[in-house]
């Protein structure tokens, strides 16, 4: 009896983790058929979900909301899986902007997609929302971040192999001077930094970051300090697999917030057909555990199965 209660509690996400264990729930429905007392005992045992008021055990509103989120994870991942990648990206960007969530999503999409993919996302955005993504970003995002973000989102970078190494060295030096001269709070508005990060090709930028480390003895991220937007921009351009691997890990951390958790679905869906193998390797190296094992440990039900299939065995 007690075991069954535990099992069902876990199925309803009573022990944390992502998603719900649909199979167990249905199994219990069968087992406890015509046994209202059984259910009654369960409700009294499940204090996170139910509070006894008088002679009934009432649902907690908070928990109902949490359940809604957990039940939706499978629905979300399936719908997203079917959607065209451009529409996915467009919807993610739109969602973030209009709810004033941190714009890491915008930076992620603007910097990790190819020029063609980003253009496609922008076209989808226009078709869906009758606005360009640039105008919405410029309008909704606070002025000091807006230069960088509008620049990143409107970029249509050269994707060929040609790199001007001399210019890259020059710009590595220019970045260093800009970082030294601007106050740390002002880095994100610095014209040189924004120009270089938002217009140069990714190959060119990788060359810049390499020269930066050679010339100044440390990676540019160290000099960017607490500037999360700039850090993220650099990471997404220079080492996207590491960025994604860390985003996944943040989702699994104790006390992760809603936005961090949503990242799990987003990263796995958007990268499943692109660079999942590299991400898995990076994850394993960085955190000492296989991504598949982490997913198996921390997620439930159909959501778990979908994730494992996307991640590939």
């Amino acid at each position, binding site marked *: 009896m007690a075991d069954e209660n535990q099992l069902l509690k876990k199925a309803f996400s009573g022990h944390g983790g992502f998603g719900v264990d649909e199979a167990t729930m249905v199994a219990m429905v069968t087992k406890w058929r015509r046994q209202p007392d059984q259910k009654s005992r369960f409700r009294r045992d499940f204090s996170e979900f139910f509070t006894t008021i008088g002679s009934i055990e009432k649902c907690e509103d908070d928990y109902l909301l949490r359940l809604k989120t957990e039940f939706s994870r499978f629905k979300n991942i399936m719908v997203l899986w079917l959607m065209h990648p451009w529409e996915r990206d467009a919807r993610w960007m739109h969602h973030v902007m209009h709810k004033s969530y941190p714009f890491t999503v915008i930076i992620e999409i603007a910097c990790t997609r190819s020029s063609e993919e980003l*253009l496609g996302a*922008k076209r989808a955005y226009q078709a869906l929302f009758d606005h360009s993504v640039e105008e919405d970003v410029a309008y909704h995002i606070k002025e000091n971040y807006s230069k960088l973000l509008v620049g990143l989102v409107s*970029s*249509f970078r050269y994707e*060929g192999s040609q790199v001007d190494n001399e210019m890259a060295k020059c710009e590595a030096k220019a970045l260093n001077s800009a970082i030294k001269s601007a106050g740390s709070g002002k880095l994100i508005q610095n*014209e040189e930094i924004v120009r270089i990060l938002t217009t140069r090709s990714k190959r060119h930028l990788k060359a810049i970051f390499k020269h930066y480390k050679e010339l100044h003895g440390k990676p540019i991220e160290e000099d960017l300090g607490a500037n999360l937007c700039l850090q993220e921009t650099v990471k997404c351009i220079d080492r996207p697999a590491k960025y994604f691997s860390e985003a996944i890990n943040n989702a699994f951390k104790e006390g992760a917030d809603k936005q961090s958790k949503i990242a799990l679905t987003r990263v796995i869906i958007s990268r499943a057909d692109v660079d999942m193998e590299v991400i898995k390797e990076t994850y394993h190296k960085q955190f000492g555990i296989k991504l598949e094992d982490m997913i198996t440990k921390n997620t439930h039900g159909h959501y778990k199965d979908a994730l494992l299939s996307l991640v590939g065995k």
Partner: protein
Amino acid sequence: MATISIPNPAPSAIEDAEKLRKAFQGWGTDEMTMIDVLAHRNAAQRKQIKIVYEEQYEEKLLKRIESEISGHFERAVYLWIFDPVERQAIMANIAIESKVFDFPVIIEIACVNSPNELLAVKQVYQSLYKRSLEEDVASHTTGDFCKLLFALVGTYRYDGEEINTELANTEAKILNDAITKGQFNDNEIIRILSTRSKAQLNTTFNCYKDAQNRSITKALSTETPNDFAIVLRAAIRCMNNPKKYFDKVFRRTLQKSGTDEDTLTRLVLTHAEKDLKEIKELFQTRTNMTLEQAVAKKTSGDYKNFLLALIGN
């Protein structure tokens, strides 16, 4: 409407290539034949001639032309052979790399073209120069000019007809607030001009006129010369009424002392296969002279004959 006249049926590309070959052979060059052929073919036909000429005679048509003729005539014929998209990419690069950055060229390309036309120019630019148009504009300009031009060139506007009148009124007011304070480089002006769709902007300009009893370009006219305001006005005019804008540029170019062949060439070549007919009509209404007469007064020789052939003589 275009002003170039194409014979119907047009001779085949082989015939044309042969005619040109004959024009190059022997002493000197038969410029009349060159003009006869090239000034009366559309972009697709010119492309074919280029291909066929190279196949037949194993030399590049452009290289031959460069060695046969010279001066303004040569420059005009050279640029004319390209299709409009390539030509704009080439002119953009010339404008960027010249000793003094040629702002009107970039403004015109960024503001007159539809979003997809601008995108096409950017794609060709990348394949020609192995860098993006944005990165070249950004690295060759500074300060306010950089802010404005980079924003205008980098954007991918919503192309539809949906407008929001309330928003237009609000943004007309924002524009007015910045203009009355004399803050032409205000971030809000740049945001609105560079991100909103053309339909939305034209609504905004109308709201501005209704509210302030004068057009926004009038409001941006300053007593003391202000280069930035000039560029701003040009951008607005290009978006609002391009034909009127080009009529004005023609008049300015043809009425000042001396002759600015580079600008004249650009104007005629860009519009001859597009909308020179309407611009001609405006020109005649404003000056009581036909465009042909005005151009004939200012130019001579083969260059003159070539321009007149394109203008529709």
